[in-house]
């Protein structure tokens, strides 16, 4: 979705940094073992590979998502330790 986030680079990254991040990302998601991850990395690289592409993304991007629920991918699956309080508060609440 966010090509900079996919490759783990800053928006100011130059061609060389983009290329290096791409090669590094491919090591973690090779196409034979993680085809979906590879596709995302490839798309991110295509979007950032040269100055012209990055300029186009900056001025005319990002493209709107076809499905709004894809935005959920931005939120990692988290299970936070919050102590017993919030759990018990649900039980303490007066019944409606």
């Amino acid at each position, binding site marked *: 979705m966010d090509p900079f*986030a996919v490759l783990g680079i800053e*928006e100011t990254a130059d061609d060389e940094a983009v290329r290096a991040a791409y090669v590094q990302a491919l090591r973690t998601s090779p196409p034979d073992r993680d085809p979906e991850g590879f596709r995302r990395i490839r798309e991110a690289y295509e979007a950032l590979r040269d100055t012209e592409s990055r300029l186009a993304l900056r*001025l005319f991007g990002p493209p709107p998502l076809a499905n709004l629920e894809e*935005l*959920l991918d931005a939120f990692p699956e988290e299970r936070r330790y919050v102590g017993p309080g919030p759990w018990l508060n*649900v039980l303490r609440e007066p019944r409606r």
Partner: protein
Amino acid sequence: MRKHKKHHGTGKRTQPPAGLGLEAWRIRIESLIASGKSRDAVEAAKQYLKHTPGPEAEALAVKAYAARIEALQASGLHREAQAIGALVRERFPAHQSQVTVLMRQSEVAAGNFDALLAELVTADTPRQRELEAILARGLTEPAVLAESPVLPADHPLKRMARAVSDALTAVTTGPLPAGALASLSDIPRHSLLAPWKLLVRALDAFYRHDDAAVLANLSGIPADSGPARLVPVLRRLVGEDGLPAERSPAVTTLIEHASGHRTVARIQLSQLSQALAAHDERKALAAVQALLPLFRTAPTALRRTFLVSVLHHWHRQGLSPDRLLRLLPSGKHDPDMLRLLALTLERGEWDTALAMWDGYLTTATATGLLSTTGPERARVLLHMANLFPADPEAVLDTLEVDSEQQLQRRMRTGQLPACFDRVALLERARVADPVPQVYRALVAHYDQWGNPKRAEAEAEAWRRVHPQDLEPLLYLIRAAERRGAIRKALAFLAEAEALDRVHPEVRQSRFRLLLAGAERRIKEGKSALALDDLERLVHEPRASEGDHPAYLLALRWIAAQQRGDTAAAAQLEQTLTTTVANPVLRGLILEALGASLKVQLPPFPAAASTPGQVIDGLARACDLFRALDRPLTVPAAVLKRAEQSLANASAAQLHALCAGGLWMGRPALTYHAAGRGLALSDPLAYRFLLARGQALCAGRAFEVEERARACLRVGRELAGRARDMEAVREASTALDSLPDWGMFDAVLTGVLSPPTETALTQEEITQIIERERRNHTTPQFPATPTSRKRRRSKPPRRRLPRGLLEDIFSFFPFDD
């Protein structure tokens, strides 16, 4: 909110029924209790006790009171329940024990466990069971038992409650070491703390991401037990359904805190999608409002994606953006917001989008986001220039002017913003960064607006600034060729060849120019020179491509005939027949050449052809003549046979016929070939749909234009999904050329606002494809290709809301 039922007219019903005995009273009161009318039951029991005092009437009254106490407890009115309980104990001391159990429940619900626990310590087993059942239902925090001063320190319940309380704290505070929950094993399955043990284990599984174990443990928690209210919440947290949409504040807080933003985002994004699909603006706004805080702290790129996606879907559903914009951060003067709005509006409202981009340029420059020169500025200006429709008439229609001169005048007088001057935008882009794209756009602009001289001048300027660029030379070659200046064209070709001799376009230009030279010599009757030219052409790399050899052989045969060299002509005739291997293609080439060169050809031996040869010959002829940019005239008989033989055509042949039909101005051929193509399961089926739409654009009837619009919209949608941007552009251009009858309908039906193009659903796409597959009826096509001038007779897109009456009257030819 608690609801207090108003009691209506019970007095009449609770009057003692005259002449009835105790049995009738008992049945009546029992019936009231059973039907949940505890208040009436109490009234009836009181009346009966008043008229017939005695132990049985007292027992009946206590039973009615007990039902009333239970009803109040069920409604959460524990204080009221306790008051009634105290009254009953005072008035009916013989029945104290019956009410005391209920009183304990109210005490527990009110958070007062001491009395119950004190009784529990000394109670006999049956009484213990009753009290434990009350505790199991009312206990909402195990620490209450663990820290109770009433329970002795060594009481098993106190010990187990301590274990549960400690485990609950540990499991919700951080990762547990192995065996940390071992102390819970001492809690027996029949213990009132057993549901708590299951809850702690479910929480442990939740944090270990073992969702199956979460659900298994939750399934063992009784629905009336103290921790049961956490069951649907935990199920929701592991992605299961069942939690009501309306949630208490505590549940909302727990979900937000325990799951990060993901669960909230999932719920709200789903609600937003549903609300948009249902055109429910209120619900969609509520969902956006709930989502905004989640994205406020997100990285910039994600925040932009969120905003642009919401704006895009909002716009596609035809909802008014005003309220949405008020909700969104920053506002109309934020350059980034203007940019995102412009991007959203580009597809449907190019003029509004252009104004937004102009605003972006101003604000971005003022805030220092964009410099006053350089590639970024040039890219924005070029992008703005590219928003103009390709058809100049569409531009004039939208801007409500009759000519380019009037457009210029309105901009000069300030009636229209200067950003509608396309040339000025391109000139500014050239100043900012004179890249080839800007020159290309300038050349294309003057070509589109019918100013070839200016276009050539721009190409010349382009060549001067970028002398190593082939593109302006290729343009200049074609331009010179178009106006018959072959020598000039050859001079440009020489320059192009000096830059890149093997470039395919240079080779193609060279081949075309040499061909044009040979053709001109034949026209002039200089057959010997023509044959020399053709001899040289045979050695050109392009000469061996596709059916080019056949074309050259045909020219050589014509030149040999013209020269009277019958032996050479006979040999060439034989070679041509063998090379073409298709009598239909051979006939088409010769007929087309005879017509274009204006020479009388001797009759070529006729040969029978199969339906397959007709299709193959016509498809190849279309490809050949399109590649050479030469006119092709197809006899009506061949066209008719081809249309009848389409069942034999392959997908590649059908694509060639679709393109050829449009190129030759034969929409019926394209229409039928596209229809046949749609029946095949071809991955490029959207191209057939696009071709059918383009063919239908030439139709005359309103229904045909509506079909054309549907085909083009579906074609554009599917081409977009396949990322075939050339097809997307073709579809958009064709859609722009269609009259906007929807606007006219809107006027006639009294709807003043312009109809909004809504998104096509998958179901609609499938329906349109199916309809076109089934439709074999040939629409009425005009004999000659439709002039774009026809568009001027339709009501302009945006003029209607402003000068409504004038436009209606101008549409009808009234005579004064």
